[in-house]
């Protein structure tokens, strides 16, 4: 990290594409840091975030949606929501953006070795889960298995669809795609993520479940995981409270006495269930 933690690195967009379209389109950016020294020193772990911005517009927090196992670049999947994200969406290959980080803790993937990994994502909430998937995929021999459940409102709202379809062809990964309502030509599941979870009916045995998505989805997924007899310690999620600095100064990201930027964003349910504000 830089000496002045507020000063970002300059990065160049190598590639960019739309994951989804519409008002709240999601655009993915693949970027590399300009400074070779910085590139060398940069290291992030799945689950961490970075502050990404455009000079003159502002910066916002995004999770780094790629795993370090993928290469010497960073990926962000940005949903258009307001001023900053709109500014980012305007950027194209070759354009410069600012990046600072990485921030926060990460998924304890080392500790999970030997376990079955189950990710349950909804909408843009798949972004923080993607690095886990990539990481586990790259080290599949070290894990007991990988199951993914991912859903969105419509097929147009699904991020990373191609990647999923690739994975669905593999028999060493179990992958379930779902959308909320029936659509013509949709070959996969239909229904809300929590119900698909019940349908998939994963065994809690030696499994870690990680979920991320809209608050309401998380609430029901947690309920259902309990029904499936997952212990609190087996369940992980990431919080996305509003942040400005990313390193514990600006104040706003706390959920109770937890600073999401430093203590999180990854939390086990056994921690969060005692924090009244966590699911507010």
């Amino acid at each position, binding site marked *: 990290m830089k000496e002045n933690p507020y000063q970002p690195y300059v990065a160049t967009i190598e590639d960019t594409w*739309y994951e989804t*379209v519409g008002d709240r*389109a999601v655009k993915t950016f693949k970027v590399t840091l300009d400074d070779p020294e910085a590139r060398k020193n940069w290291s992030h772990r799945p689950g961490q975030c970075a502050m990404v911005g455009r000079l003159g517009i502002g910066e916002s927090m995004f999770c780094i949606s790629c795993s370090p196992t993928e290469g010497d670049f960073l990926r962000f999947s940005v949903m*258009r929501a307001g001023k900053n994200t*709109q500014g980012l*969406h*305007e*950027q*194209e290959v070759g*354009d410069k953006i600012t990046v600072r980080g990485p921030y926060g803790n990460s998924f304890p993937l080392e500790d999970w070795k030997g376990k079955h990994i189950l990710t349950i994502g909804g909408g843009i909430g798949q972004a923080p889960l993607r690095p886990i998937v990539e990481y586990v995929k790259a080290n599949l021999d070290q894990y007991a298995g990988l199951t993914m459940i991912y859903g969105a409102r419509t097929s147009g709202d699904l991020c990373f669809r191609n990647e999923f379809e690739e994975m669905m062809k593999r028999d060493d990964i179990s992958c379930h795609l779902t959308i909320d309502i029936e659509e013509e030509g949709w070959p996969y599941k239909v229904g809300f993520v929590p119900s698909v979870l019940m349908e998939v009916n994963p065994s809690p045995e030696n499994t870690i479940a990680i979920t991320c998505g809209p608050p309401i989805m998380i609430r029901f997924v947690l309920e259902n995981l309990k029904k499936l007899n997952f212990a609190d310690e087996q369940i992980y999620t990431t919080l996305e409270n509003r942040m400005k600095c990313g390193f514990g100064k600006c104040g706003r990201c706390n959920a109770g006495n937890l600073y999401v930027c430093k203590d999180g964003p990854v939390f086990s349910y056994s921690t969060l269930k005692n924090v009244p504000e966590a699911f507010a």
Partner: protein
Amino acid sequence: MNNKPKIGVYVCHCGMNIAKTVDVEAVSEFASRLPYVKVARNYSYMCSDPGQQLIKEDIKNEGLTRVVVASCSPRMHENTFRKTLAAAGLNPYYLEMANIREHCSWVHENREEATAKAKKLVYAAVAKVRLLEPLEEKEVEVEPSALIVGGGIAGIQAALDIAAAGFKVYMVEKTPSVGGKMSQLDKTFPTLDCSACILTPKMVDVASHPNIELMTYSQVEDITGYVGNFNVKVRKKARYVDINKCTGCGACAQECRLAGTIPSEFNMGLGKRAAIYLPFPQAVPAKYTIDKERCLFLTRGKCGKGPKCIEACAAGAINFEQQDEIVEFKVGTIIIATGYELFDPAKKPEYGYADYDNVITGLELERLVAASGPTGGEIVIGKGEKAIVPKEVAFISCVGSRDESVGKPYCSRVCCMYSAKLAHLVTEKLPDANVRIYYMDVRAFGKGYEEFYDRVRREGVRYIRGNPSEIFKRGDKLVIKAEDTLAGRTLEDEVDLVVLATGLEPRQDAREIIDILKLSQSADGFYLEAHPKLAPVDTATDGVYLAGCAQGPKDIPDTVAQAKGAASSALILLSSGKVKVQAQISNINEATCRGCGYCVEICPFGAIDLVEVNRMGNIVQVARVNEALCKGCGACAAGCFSGSAQQKSFKDQQILPQIAVLGAMK
């Protein structure tokens, strides 16, 4: 999707018109370095075919998504270039023009200064164009029918014209009969045709025309919608007479216990009628109506042993159970022809109208001289023994016209002439009578009017210039105190009859229509036309037109001319069958709207309404724009404190960057 905008900037030489004063080369070079600009070119005539071709090619080859043309005024060529964009498959509203000719090269001489300013204007256009949004040009279908409110001569004429063109017309008349004021007149100036003779056939046509649905004794309750698609709600008031059964024989009225006791409106209270009545013999439809304010049965629940009218009516048309009926229908256009009212002379107590029976108004005299009137055309004042035939008759003009003291600064345009007409009729009927007219000026501007005025003077009517200051009684006579300003003396004039030429004023109930249609009033209170010269029959609301005295005082020829104008405007709309809706209209962000209703009040076109919406389970009030009514003035946007109302293509977020550029570039 908001990809990075790719802007093309095209600087026009306009031959030497621009290039002579502005260094177009430098401007396009400058533009090429501006943010988001992909290409910047200059060319001799951008509006020429090859010029436009240049833009089209760049849109295709360079993938431009926005275009700035720096050339002449957008008032000149905005449409040209919009079409260029459209032809190349780009939304036409992705265009912004920088006016470097009219606002720059033609008004500045110094090349350096002009070039600097041109750069500034181009930069401002670039700053804005980046944020423009695609807009859609919509068309709406027009319902092939018209509503006409008011069945005076104006409404009648308009209805007949539209019906003749083959469109359906709904005519709504408040009173039991069509005809309006004209039906009360005896003869009409300047040709002295008998009013009833020329009007009655038209009234009958209205009632019998297959395309016209006549609703008398009816009132418009509500109108919603917009040009081409108005939804109209009309209340047909209960007449307590089934008009399908009533034969108009009048037996009922003869039997009515109140027969001959109720002052007749038509006869200005000079004659009497029954509680069940036909306003006048030629009324259309010739159907009786029960006056529910007066009818004993309806007011007290009892009429002797039973309503006599019921017994009298052989057709069994009387039905005391009848209720108001609401009918709804759709029309594409509306003509307002609700006419006028007369100034109440009691507001000028010095003329003694309220005190003396022999001070009357012009319209009352019309009834007195009319053969069909209460006196059978005899000019007599008072009744029975006391009745006299006046010998000394004075007219006073401009009563309630051109008079600031009663808030009527305008000229009523008909009083001079109807005074002359009535004076003529008096001398005709009472050859011995001495008739004089007190006047301010005589306005005889119409075709044949000056001639008519001359004729009346030749017939011995005396014109005295001066406004009477007072009228009082001395014995049997009325004394008019006045100053003859031409002779320069004051006089006291003893007369038998004073006729006040009362002015025309807006109807008391004019607000009803204003509230329903959000029409505007001009300072005098009459409905306001869209433009006094160029759009005299139009209103601010598209598809709504004005005819007759509803728009302002006028005589019958003008009324009819305007009615035909309104009918023709309505017909243009009806026969084209489609109407274009503005694209650069306003829109409200319902998420931030605070429901204060400012925009609703402000909108000159009544295009905004407050509606209740569900905001996460809570019911809140927000404003909503009716796209077909909005004309894109943007007044709501500037008046909205919360910034929720925004005009497309002129949004705050599009204008602020322009300001930033113009402010920063010194």
